Structure formats: structure tokens, C-alpha cells
């Protein structure tokens, strides 16, 4: 799925026609996509009119009940971020993700924020990465694999359309001079997909994944290696 595909989700988003995982991923994408925000606002203005177009007379008792409840309901203070998080939590979907895949994708998406900052990447790079991850996460054909990482922690691979997103959590911190490196493994060949970091929450993207290819992680010198110099600590075949 390309960025263009992701942008075309503005309509489905405005019509509330995304499943919970996609909705969350798309909302994260929105935060970094000004043109999508503008379009979503316009399309939501149109859907609001669809609502007005089906106005119906509510039961008279509703007014009394609403006014009575309002009279005993405290208004929020105008202080954005904290309550926004609370609002998110109050959504039934996020309290209990319906599927394991949902939980995994949320973890990947959440990890991404930390990734951009932690790795000190350029904003544009981080945005591109965010878009690629988002595209994989909303692909209906995506596969999700989770496996333990040797020495500790868990790795998850979400893959679709030749792209795989690796997310490692609780990875043991490596000694100075070492780092986790991500690989695309085709038979005996391994192609580096980047150095991830020394531990904790780490995210990376593998591209050009062919049928039967695996996603692997090994411990390497912190500058990275051109091919794995130690046994992988994590291997998953997404296909």
C-alpha cells in the first residue's frame, strides 16, 4: 500500500468506515499530514450535513434527562493534551483491543513516536517511516508474527506487500559498542535493514521482502555490519 492509498482513506475516515486499528493508525498519520487534515475537515463538514439530513424528532423526555445530567456534570478545563489521552482511553476499542493484531499494531504505532525522537532522525525521515508503517498496518492482507527474542524481550513483525515492520519491546540493553541490527534474510543472503539501537523499544522497516524471505535481528558492532557476524537473536518468516 502506498502513501497515495493511505491518503485516499480520508473519505472512509470521515464516514467512520475504518476498523479500529486502521482508525488509530490513520489518526496518527493525520497528525503529520497537513493536507490530509484539511481534506478530512472538509469531508467531515459534508458528513455532518448527512446527519442533519436525517433529523428526527427526539423523545420529549430526552431533553429533560440531558439537561438534568448537564446540571450535575462538570465541564473539562480547556487544557488539551491530558484529556485528549483520557478521551482516547474512554473509547471502548482502545480499552480492550478486539484482536491480538490490534494490540500489536498499536504497540508498533506507539513505538514509532519514541523511535523518531530516540534515533534523532530527521523529521522527514521519521514521517516517511511513519507513513510506511501506517500503510502496512492498514493493509487488509497484513500478517502478524510475534516471537521471543533470545536473551529477552519480544519481537513482532507486521508485514504486507513486501514490506515488514519489526517492533522489539523490552530488549535487554547491550553493552557500549554493540547494537541490534535488522536484516532481510533470503536464503544464505542477508541484506541490512538498518541498525536499530541498543535496547528497549526499537522499530525498523524491512523492504523488498520476497516470498520465503525472513526478517531477522542480530547483535552487531554499533556502527553496523555488512552481513551478520553473530547468530540472529530473532528470526521470523512473514509469508
Amino acid at each position, binding site marked *: 500500500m502506498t502513501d497515495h*492509498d493511505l491518503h*485516499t*482513506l*480520508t*473519505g*472512509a475516515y*470521515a*464516514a*467512520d*468506515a*475504518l*476498523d*479500529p486499528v486502521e482508525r488509530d493508525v490513520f489518526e496518527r498519520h493525520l497528525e503529520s499530514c497537513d493536507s490530509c487534515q*484539511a481534506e478530512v*475537515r*472538509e*469531508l*467531515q*463538514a*459534508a*458528513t*455532518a*450535513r*448527512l*446527519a*442533519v*439530513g*436525517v*433529523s*428526527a*424528532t*427526539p*423523545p420529549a423526555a*430526552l*431533553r429533560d*434527562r*440531558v*439537561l438534568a*445530567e*448537564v*446540571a450535575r*456534570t*462538570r*465541564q*473539562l*478545563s*480547556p487544557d*488539551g493534551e491530558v*484529556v*485528549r489521552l483520557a*478521551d482516547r482511553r474512554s*473509547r*471502548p*476499542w482502545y480499552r480492550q483491543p478486539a484482536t491480538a493484531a490490534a494490540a500489536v499494531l498499536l504497540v508498533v504505532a506507539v513505538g514509532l513516536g519514541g523511535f523518531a525522537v530516540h534515533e534523532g532522525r530527521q523529521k522527514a525521515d521519521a514521517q516517511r517511516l511513519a507513513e510506511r508503517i501506517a500503510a502496512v498496518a492498514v493493509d*487488509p492482507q497484513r500478517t502478524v508474527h510475534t516471537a521471543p527474542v533470545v536473551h529477552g524481550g519480544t519481537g513482532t513483525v507486521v508485514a504486507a506487500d513486501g514490506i515488514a515492520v519489526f517492533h522489539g519491546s523490552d530488549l535487554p540493553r547491550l553493552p557500549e559498542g554493540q547494537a541490534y541490527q535488522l536484516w532481510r534474510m533470503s536464503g544464505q543472503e542477508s541484506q541490512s535493514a538498518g541498525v536499530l539501537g541498543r535496547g528497549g523499544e526499537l522499530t525498523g522497516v524491512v523492504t523488498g521482502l520476497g516470498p520465503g524471505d525472513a526478517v531477522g535481528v542480530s547483535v552487531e558492532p554499533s556502527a553496523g555490519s555488512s552481513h551478520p557476524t553473530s547468530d540472529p537473536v530473532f528470526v521470523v518468516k512473514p509469508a
Partner: protein
Amino acid sequence: MSPTTPAADGTMTRMALRRAPRGPDLDAGPAALDDLLHRVARGDGAAFELLYDRVAGSVYGVIRRVLRDPAQSEEVAQEVLVEVWRTATRFDGGRGSASTWIHTMAHRRAIDRVRSAQASHDREERVAHRDHVPAYDEVVDTVETRLEQEQVRRCVQGLTDLQRESVTLAYYGGHTYQQVAELLDVPLGTVKTRMRDGLIRLRDCLGVMA
């Protein structure tokens, strides 16, 4: 044509103008509702009552359209309207009109209810009946809403068949775009695209301001 008309005591005048039967006034209505919502944000209970009278019909109407069940619809409408009061302080007029903010919230709540487990049975029945064509019944009987409904109906009819079915199955039927693709037996990408260009066409036809 000034969405930035100064607020304060001009509100009632503009509302009176808005109610005059001279066609849907796309500027005065939303502006007045925005003013009301700003007053609500400052804890003005009287403003909330006026706001209730302006939006309760459409909030309840769209929830009812999606959920069908009157008791559930009433419950969700109450939640949404109280939520408007509670979170009015978070409304940002720079990011869209009060009407968009309120109805987006209402529809989202209805959809969340549809997709929750207890509603799955009802939804399967709806899928079976493919009962998605808006019937425009139970109309709030005022000149203003009738004109509004007439315009929405005309604009919806102006869509291509696939655009109209994609938009209404999703928005009124409460289906995800994957479910819409299955119901219409067309590829996912087509449904996504038709939903988007259908809403763009609606936007242009309705002359909405974000």
C-alpha cells in the same frame, strides 16, 4: 457571508434571521451555532438549552439512522449531548464548525456502539436486508430542516450509483469500507476511492465550509 461575525448579544438576532424561510443560510446558521457553543464552553446553561434545541433532532436522527433501535439511540444521543456540554471547552473553531464537531462526535459514538459486540446481531440482520437507503422519515417539521433535507437528498441523488451506495452504506449503514466492498462486490480500492470522491462531490454540492 461572514462566519466571523462578532458574537455577544447579536446571537438571537442572527438566529431569528436564520429561521426565516428564505432557503438554507449556510453562513448565519453555523456561525450562530458556533457562538452558542462558545457560550456553552463558558458554562452558560441557557446557551446549552438553545444549542440543544438546534442540534438534538439531527444528533438523535443520525444515531437513530445508524442504530435503528430507539432505546439505544436515545441512550447514545444523551451521552453525546452531555459530552458536548462536558467537552465544549475543547472545541476549536479554527478546525471546523460547531455543527461538524457535534455531528462527527454523534456519528462516531453511534458507530462505536454498532461495532460493539452486543450490536453485532442487529448488524447482521441489516446486512441481510441491505436496508441502507435513507428514507428521510420522521422529519423534524420545520421549514429550515425540510429545506436542508431537500438539499441533502438532491446532492446525494447527484452522486453516481457506486458513490452513493458506498457513502450511504458506510455512513447510514454503519459498515466499514471492507464490509461495503463485500456487500457491493467491488474491490476494496474502488470503495475507498468512491467514498472519498463521493464525499468530495457532496461537499461541493452542499457548499459546506469546513
